[in-house]
């Protein structure tokens, strides 16, 4: 019982620390790719301390509460993910719950952005939700394939099954699904080529245009959580999870570095082009993966 409570408290803290570390690592890594020195790795922490010391301007009650809602959604999703040990809330419906609650984050931002009276916010949040629509279709097919292959909905059992056999990305039925998940990973993370929703040059950073001070700090924390969730889901479902947290974090680091390399060289796709891409090849691959795993299982 006490162990459970400790896990409940420790999981979001680990997710926050790892997420913020990934944000700083992203800036340093991108700078090195550009042949320059970058900021120190703890630069997001410095930014957040500065943001908490700034006096911000609020636009109303829903403006504050929307951010809290999206942050709460992200923290709840973290509690469902196994973190190298067992997950604190490891019920039997892990994957479906994550699929639903993962959408609370953009929804919370939409609620809070509705009260900021800036048209850039509406453009940014509409693009973010359309992008969510874009990657949800292949994501659903991928999760269905995983569920069919392992005959379970719980992520913990998927991880245990992979620990005893091999990684599912190199096993035959789920190879196509894993490839498809890797193709839509930049869209879920919100990095280039899919960062159309927070484009600083075009729509003045979209839905973060009216956030200053502590609101921006909360949005940065929420961004850190989303980073952690997306990569942790990939590692759990396709790269075998891990028996202890250290191996788990090392695997997450590898995947994140690959994503950053893609981020450094690609330009930004428009939202129409992004949806056309997301509904073409990744969906096709995920669909084929689903059919293959159905055929093999029956």
């Amino acid at each position, binding site marked *: 019982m006490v162990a459970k409570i400790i896990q409940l408290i420790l999981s979001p803290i680990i997710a926050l620390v790892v997420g913020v570390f990934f944000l700083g690592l992203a*800036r340093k890594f991108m*700078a090195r790719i*550009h*042949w*320059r*020195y*970058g*900021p*120190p790795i703890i*630069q997001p922490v*410095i*930014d957040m*301390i*500065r943001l908490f*010391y*700034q*006096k*911000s*301007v*609020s636009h109303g009650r829903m403006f504050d509460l929307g951010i809290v809602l999206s942050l709460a959604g992200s923290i709840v999703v973290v509690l469902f993910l196994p973190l190298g040990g067992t997950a604190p809330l490891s019920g039997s419906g892990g994957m479906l719950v994550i699929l639903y609650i993962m959408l609370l984050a953009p929804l919370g931002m939409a609620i809070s952005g509705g009260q900021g009276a800036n048209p850039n916010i509406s453009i940014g949040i509409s693009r973010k939700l359309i992008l969510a629509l874009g990657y949800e279709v292949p994501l659903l097919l991928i999760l269905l394939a995983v569920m069919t292959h392992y005959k379970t909905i719980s992520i913990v059992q998927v991880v245990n099954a992979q620990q005893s056999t091999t990684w599912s990305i190199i096993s035959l039925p789920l190879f196509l699904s894993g490839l498809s998940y890797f193709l839509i990973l930049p869209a879920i993370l919100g990095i280039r080529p899919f960062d159309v929703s927070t484009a*600083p*040059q075009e729509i*003045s*950073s979209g839905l*973060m*245009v*009216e*956030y*200053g*001070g502590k609101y*921006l700090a909360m949005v940065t924390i929420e961004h850190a959580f989303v980073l952690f969730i997306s990569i942790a889901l990939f590692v759990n479902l396709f790269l075998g999870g891990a028996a202890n947290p250290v191996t788990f974090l090392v695997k997450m680091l590898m995947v994140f570095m690959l994503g950053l390399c893609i981020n450094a060289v690609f330009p930004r796709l428009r939202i129409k082009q992004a949806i056309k891409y997301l509904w073409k090849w990744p969906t096709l691959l995920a669909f084929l993966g689903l059919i293959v795993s159905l055929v093999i299982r029956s």
Partner: protein
Amino acid sequence: MDRNKITKWLKEPAKMANKYSLHAIYFCTGCGIIEIPPVITARWDAERFGVIPAATPRQANLFLITGYVSVKTLRAIIRTYEQMPEPKYTVGFGSCPINGGMYWDSYNTIKHLDKYIPIDGWIAGCMPRPEAIFIAVTHLWTLIDKEMANGYIRYRKNYESYRRNQELALGKLEWPPLYKASEEPQGNEQ
């Protein structure tokens, strides 16, 4: 650069954090903006000082007024400056905001920007080189340490004088006064 001294961080975190995370709003005022892209790209990297461009005034900390200020631009500058959250720092760039520079006898530019917006420091030059911009950033750190970079406090204290000057230069202003006479900020600022 004392970013690595942990004891200083624990003693006064607000000053250290304001120093090493100066987000400059990307407002391209005049001809001096041509010096900013070399500063923030790979050759003279400003990101290792913590200075990156921010897209909106609400996320920004530092306002660089680069180049000459015409009367229409002054309107936009005042509105942008008043949207930034405190504490905020402004730096005048080039010789045109100092005393008019090359346009000292022009019918449409503002000669002394200090009468309309509080300025914390000036960088002389037409245009200053990127090395001069970095010297200015480190000088701003020294000012923040000694608590002499208090432009925003001066703005709050002398708001009526600033607003009178702004009305003399621009005519009628479309936005209401930011601070009431009793030194309380308008709106629900927190």
